[in-house]
């Protein structure tokens, strides 16, 4: 299961989350406010924005500079500024796993993480795990087991499954179910996904 991201400095964790939560829930239909994405951080933390800032991200092994408003999520930075569209926004609340990426090898839901907080970390997206011509063993297993239908949840499952297999060399079915239960699929491919993970585990 992808964990909620924690920023490098644990002390800043709470303000980060409340700001993001506020940004995402004060949505359509709510009373108009002049709120912008600043001001929630404690005095001790460095304040970014409101104007765009340049962030240096390390994505799939390459150094990437993006200039974004500091409130931009890691997911939106990857998708809208780096053209890495494999990670999807599905629930936009960290509840579906569709936007899962690896941060220093650990799965995180990139819709709940600010791009600014990903600086200094190794980010791996679905695009970094394999190509259509050279798929990873898990990707290959997904294709062979038909562990996908519409395929919209698939990148999230593959990234989560990759992290899961890195931590579980010989997983039981119960462990796989538990390990992937942060991800949702609507077409109903779970059984095939379990097959694919088991198959990839057997191949090592």
């Amino acid at each position: 299961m992808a964990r909620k991201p924690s920023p490098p400095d644990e002390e800043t964790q709470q303000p980060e989350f409340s700001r993001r939560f506020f940004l995402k829930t004060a949505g359509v239909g709510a009373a108009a406010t002049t709120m912008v994405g600043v001001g929630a951080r404690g005095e001790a933390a460095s304040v970014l924005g409101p104007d765009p800032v340049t962030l240096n991200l390390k994505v799939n092994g390459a150094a990437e500079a993006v200039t974004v408003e500091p409130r931009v999520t890691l997911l939106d930075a990857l998708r809208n500024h780096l053209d890495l569209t494999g990670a999807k926004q599905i629930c936009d609340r960290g509840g579906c796993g569709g936007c899962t990426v690896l941060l220093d090898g650990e799965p995180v839901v990139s819709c709940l993480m600010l791009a600014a907080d990903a600086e200094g970390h190794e980010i791996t997206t679905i695009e970094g795990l394999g190509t259509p011509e050279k798929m990873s063993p898990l990707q290959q297993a997904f294709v062979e087991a038909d562990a996908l239908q519409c395929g919209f949840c698939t990148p999230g499952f593959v990234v989560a499954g990759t992290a899961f297999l890195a931590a579980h060399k010989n997983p039981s079915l119960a462990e796989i179910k538990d390990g992937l239960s942060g991800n949702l699929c609507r077409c109903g491919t779970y059984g095939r996904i379990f097959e694919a993970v088991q198959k990839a585990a057997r191949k090592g």
Partner: protein
Amino acid sequence: MAQDEKAPEPTVTFTAKAGFPSAPTSMEVHAAVGDIKPWDAESWAQFEQMGKPRPRAEGPLKVTGRAKYTYDVKLPGMLYGRMIGAAVAAGEIVSIDTSKAEALPGVKAVWTADSRIVRFAGQDVAAVAAVSPEVAMDAARLVKVTYKERPFAHELRAAMEPDAAPVYDLDKSPAGPDVPRKGNVVGPRGGRRSEGRGDTETGFAEADVVHEGTYYCPVHTHSPLETHGVVASWEGDQLTVYASTQGIFAVREGLAEALGIDRKNVRVLCEHMGGGFGSKLGPSATGSAFAMVACRLAKKAGAPVKLMLDRKQQHLCTGNAPSALITVKVGAKKDGTITAVDYRSYGSAGIAGGAGTAGPVNALHGKNPNLRVEEYDVYTNAGPAAPLRAPGHSQGAFGIESAVDELADKLGLDPLEVRKKNEASPVRAAQYDLGAKAIGWSRRNKKAGDMSSGGFPPAKGAKKRGLGMANGNWYVFAAADVSAQVKIHRDGSVEVIAGYQDIGTGSRTAMAVVAAEELGIETSAVTMRIGDTQFPEGPGSGGSITINSVAPVVRLAASEARTKLFALAAPLLGVTPEELDAARGKVFVAKDKARSVTFKEAAAKMSGETIDCTAKRKKQYETFRGDLTGTQFAEVEVDTETGEVRVLKMVSVNDCGFPVNPLTTQSQVIGAMIQGASWALLEDRTLDRNVGTMVNPNLEWYKIFTPADMFEAESILTPVANLGNNTSTAGIGEPPIVPTLAVIGNAVYNAIGVRIRELPITPDRVLGALAEARRRA
């Protein structure tokens, strides 16, 4: 969608083998002139490409994140749009003030709705387009809307009350003046499925036992993981729209008409799409005109606009499955012979009609001679429904198949035996024992709730197991105006070009299989080009229509291309084209297979660059039988202390004619069982009775099945040469979800001995029902 019965057209007659390949029967089919002999029961054993499990062609793109969905499209200078929905359930819009939004730097265009009447929360009010999603969100918050609120009806049963707030003024009803109306209740509606048969009074007089019960299903939402959305781009008067849709031609038609422009100037593209389940059949959605709005914003801003709905909007305004309140009275003789069914159904499709559920009661228990049906629509202040995977049929099957289960219990008979007794379909009759064996039906509790009465091991603590079954039906629909193009190039490469879309079913791969089988080449040698309205016209993917509509025309075009190729190969082999056959990449003399040339060698002889054949769908044959049958079984475990229901195993036995690709076909069947089990146990779109807005407009409170809920799922296909078209194919997307609600409900009853007639079967309902049973005992 069904084939019209018109004046007889000239036909050609083929004699072919129909039915199960193991027990074929000879029959004549009358096909339109120009059609070809259907693949029949004898073809099944000879197929080289058809009927073999194979991974879907686009798999490598999807598992590596390279597949581009509408949501992933990014055009130069593209703006981000955002819809703004009504915040109240009913009333009038007094004013929409967009001035602050328009003044915000980065905002490039604003749209406001013409209509000032609000009938559901989430209805289109305004929209903005801005340079980034963040600015668009800021701008949306700056749009100030004031309302004059009115009373509303939030839910089916509340809306049926005599003093309920009327959703429409009494002189206005979308159903028209001819349909009776009382408050929000409209009906009984007419229509084929309400006609009934026989005389139920006589039937009930003949019955030894009568059961009557009322069953309730809440509203479900489709919840496709890719929300509805488009990217709209103008170049002069030419409009290009990338759409997450189940029907590219429906989008083209709807946008051209809404914008008042020629269809020829509109191009709609859909390469991959992230789920629809019936909610993406129209130009936009049933409860929002977002696609048209995106086109207008793009025109106004002079830049492409991407407009994706968010998750909340998806729940509110892109359709849903109507609720249903179904009362069934069923009578039978002591031996289980059903003598009469009286069926009355109320349902709410929100502000729309179309909540009928009578499909299953018409089709199942076909030997029952006496049936009476009444169906009513009830308006509520909620987003209009949309077809959701066998619309109305899961609800309807929950009604009739729960009632028949209760009837069997009253009769002291095995519910499976009661089904068999009243079965009219030879295909389903053959399916019962396959399913029963796979689930281990003999273990079922002979006395519901008593785990010592069947073959289960003794109950462990508070956990009880049970088995249930139910039947489902569906139809063989076909779209008539479908064309496809097959090209063989001079280098031997092959393309199939057709304007349909793969909504995740594997239809892209399936048509490649059909073309490859006809041309005698490998499926992997066929390149598919789909999802573009510049290609020959394809059907909208709804009603499990795609395979049955497109496969026959792909085969026809491939057959014409094959004939042309044979004309090139014949001189090389010194025979006539009629003496040739093709398989495994070779064209050979049918009576002397050693004499052959390769497909490529034959293609190299063409005079130009391409053999290019476009065919149009011929008439659907008079079918071997009208319905698609299925039967389904489940084993559940109920924790009687916590009320939690866990599905342990499900088995679905289905007929879809010839399954073109059993791997992807079975993926759909298994997926339907999971989605259906999720509806049965978890899903309930809840509107707040005090304010009329949705309480659970996300994916954590609108719960769907997760990996942790997953059970062992088995799909058993019974291939049938149905001779409905030249490929004997039929769709499978919908049939396997029809019985699932009833299957789960019946299994829960078998486990605990208490009937839960209201869905979803949540722990509170289980515990409440058990407590009620204890009080009565």
